[in-house]
């Protein structure tokens, strides 16, 4: 069976050119980038090229990029690093209710350490209110951490305005940009960011590599202790092939982002409109907010999203719902709850996320497969039949 993959917000395939760029660094050029000899020098040169490539994608300076193991490490490093480095008696952090667990759980850990945290609510469209942000800032506020694009909805926060507010208040601003990098332009200067997290595998680089942008002059408490790799910011022998993959993927994203984005958005809109037209009583979530071009979150009342995902997978279509827990079972989405969906509707929602290689043929196939699967589920749904008969 040829399978259709519409779950690019979960992960992406490694681009063949990215893989090609990485391969020599597993074998012929296997050197430790910290070694003095020629083996090491070749690895070092490649790592620094990758740093340039990532910096170029963000409009940052190369020395502001630290390679990490991925989004979660970057988020944790940024959040704990800033809070620990600030010599204030009463510390306060501002975040939102729809952050990724890497940020939310880090903030909850801070609370246990006595740090106050404000979780800004979001509108029906998944956006924070800038006035509420302004009002939340207080003398002890040391960090604002607001995600750029949301993984479940695709909504893009007004980060430039957030950046202005943070700069005026002289508070550090971190963003989890894992879901926006490679999908929409990100300019750390224009957005006035102090810290930004990104993850390789969301933009066709391998898993296990990511980066943290740390604006020059930002004081960050050391997070890991070890050798003086990456200027001590992130000790540990560099994951040279992974870093090179991330650099190459960043370069590809920089060159093709605009073209990809308009094509993917057209496919996404076609899928979204087509499904809404073919499936009665369906609606799209947060669709009037600015969104990443690839993401569509739809609710089909009367179904269990979990059953639909399984049903679609058996038919060869991969998409997702909520956040998976370690067993692979679906847990209720804190994001959909935060935008005000009742529990039953949150459970009836699924996410399609397209990618660079999504084809029109796949969209056409999805437009046939999904409505049939929803109809099949609704046939056996006790709640949908009740709803339908109540209207008669």
């Amino acid at each position, binding site marked *: *069976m*040829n*399978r*259709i993959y519409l779950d690019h917000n979960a992960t992406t395939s490694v681009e*063949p050119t990215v893989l090609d760029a990485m391969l020599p660094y597993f074998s012929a050029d296997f050197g430790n980038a910290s070694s003095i000899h020629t083996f090491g020098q070749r690895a070092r040169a490649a790592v620094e090229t990758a740093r340039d490539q990532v910096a170029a994608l963000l409009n940052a300076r190369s020395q502001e990029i630290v390679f990490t193991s991925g989004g979660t490490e970057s988020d944790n490093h940024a959040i704990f690093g800033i809070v620990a480095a600030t010599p204030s008696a009463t510390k306060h952090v501002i975040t939102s209710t729809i952050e990724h667990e890497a940020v939310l759980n880090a903030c909850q850990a801070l609370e246990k350490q006595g740090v106050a945290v404000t979780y800004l609510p979001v509108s029906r469209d998944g956006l924070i209110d800038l006035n509420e942000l302004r009002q939340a800032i207080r003398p002890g506020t040391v960090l604002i951490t607001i995600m750029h694009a949301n993984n479940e909805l695709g909504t893009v926060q007004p980060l430039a305005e957030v950046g202005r507010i943070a700069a005026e208040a002289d508070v550090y601003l971190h963003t989890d940009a894992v879901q926006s990098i490679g999908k929409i332009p990100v300019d750390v200067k224009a957005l006035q960011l102090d810290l930004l997290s990104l993850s390789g595998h969301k933009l066709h680089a391998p898993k296990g590599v990511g980066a943290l942008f740390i604006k020059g002059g930002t004081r960050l408490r050391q997070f890991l202790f070890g050798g003086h790799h990456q200027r001590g910011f992130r000790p540990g022998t560099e994951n040279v092939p992974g870093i090179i993959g991330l650099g190459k993927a960043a370069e590809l994203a920089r060159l093709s982002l605009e073209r990809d984005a308009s094509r993917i958005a057209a496919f996404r809109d076609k899928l979204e409109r087509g499904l809404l037209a073919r499936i009665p009583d369906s609606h799209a979530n947060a669709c009037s907010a600015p969104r990443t071009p690839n993401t569509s979150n739809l609710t089909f009342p009367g*179904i*269990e999203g*979990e*059953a639909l995902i*399984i*049903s679609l*997978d*058996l*038919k*060869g*279509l991969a998409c997702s719902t909520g956040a998976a*827990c*370690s*067993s*692979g*079972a*679906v*847990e209720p989405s804190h994001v959909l709850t935060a935008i005000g969906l009742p529990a039953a509707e949150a459970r009836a929602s699924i996410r399609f996320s397209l990618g660079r*290689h999504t*084809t029109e*043929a*796949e969209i*056409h*196939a999805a437009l*046939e*497969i999904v409505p*049939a*699967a929803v109809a*099949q*589920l609704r046939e*056996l*749904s*006790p709640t949908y039949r009740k709803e339908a008969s109540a209207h008669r």
Partner: protein
Amino acid sequence: MSTQLQLDSLPAVAERTPGLVAVAMSGGVDSSTVAAVLLQQGRPVVGLTMQLWNQRRLPELQGDGPAQHRCCSLDDVYDAKRVAQHLNFPHYVVNFEEQFEQRVVKPFVEQYLAGRTPIACTNCNTDVKFESLLRMARQIGAERLATGHYARIRHHERMDRYQLLRARDNSKDQSYFLWGLTQEQLSRSEFPLGELSKDEVRALARQVNLPVADKPESMELCFVPNGNYVQFIHAYSRENRMSLKDQEGDIVTEDGTVIGRHAGVHNYTIGQRKGLGFATGKPIYVVAIDREQNRVVAGDDDALRSASFEVEGVNWISIAEPASPTRAQVKIRHKHDPASATVEALPGFRARIAFDDPQRAITPGQAAVIYDDDDVVLAGGWIVNSR
């Protein structure tokens, strides 16, 4: 683009796999072998593992570190996945935590607090496995649900009725927990192990090299760590602000003489000898639990025996409700040897059961399951009283 797919190579629209069977997989040897048996019969299989209970809840019940080797532990989920991978069929984990709590865990705790001795497995079968899971199985295109239960289902042509029977291997029989199923549920269920002994199941599992072939059996109530249900009830009722008040009370004899104190009726079950807190000449047992007056009634072995009792929530599973009293073999707990009795159906899904000889510890909250002289389960119901 190199990865461009052609329309005709894409999956066919909403195809249903004819005869697709969903297997409820716990990660144990029985349900894993079910999948192997069905595949050997050439039938398409999809595995479903239920996530029923979040082991992170009630942290006071945890020892150090994450839960191991218990229902819904990651180990079991991964075992099920390994089996599916080994035998090469699709497998999914499905989340029924909410249903499980509402239909199984909460009633279980409430029953104990009310002085009864509930069976969680029956509710889980009737209200979760053969309800929510079966529905999901059908929604994803499966026609039937197969489980690793040791019991048998047959279709009685003349009555046009599905019947539940004991397993061929009586020592493993689980029909005691399945009497609540409806005709609709039975018609869509399969118990492929019903004709096999446990040894045969293990042998089959080894034959196909199942990674769980030698996994030990789990006997405990799946959501109660260490089998300590009193501890669980305390933790759960505290978490859910359920009333544990009037905890302490009197232990009395049948004539009302106070002979001791108890620390909550949920600590006791009928027939229990331990925990009465004192020694007398001859052994005494809990013979009744009086929740109203918060008393535990103790008595000797004779007082523990009774012949006649009523059941409620009766389901005549394999036959129509009989119009006149029926002779049957009745089993009043999982490990009870069925005894001869006369069963009389009463209005409102009740029945009166009279044993020929008094039986020990007829316990409210447990099920009475009514068999014919063969292996057919005629009915089952919840024991309400024994006096």
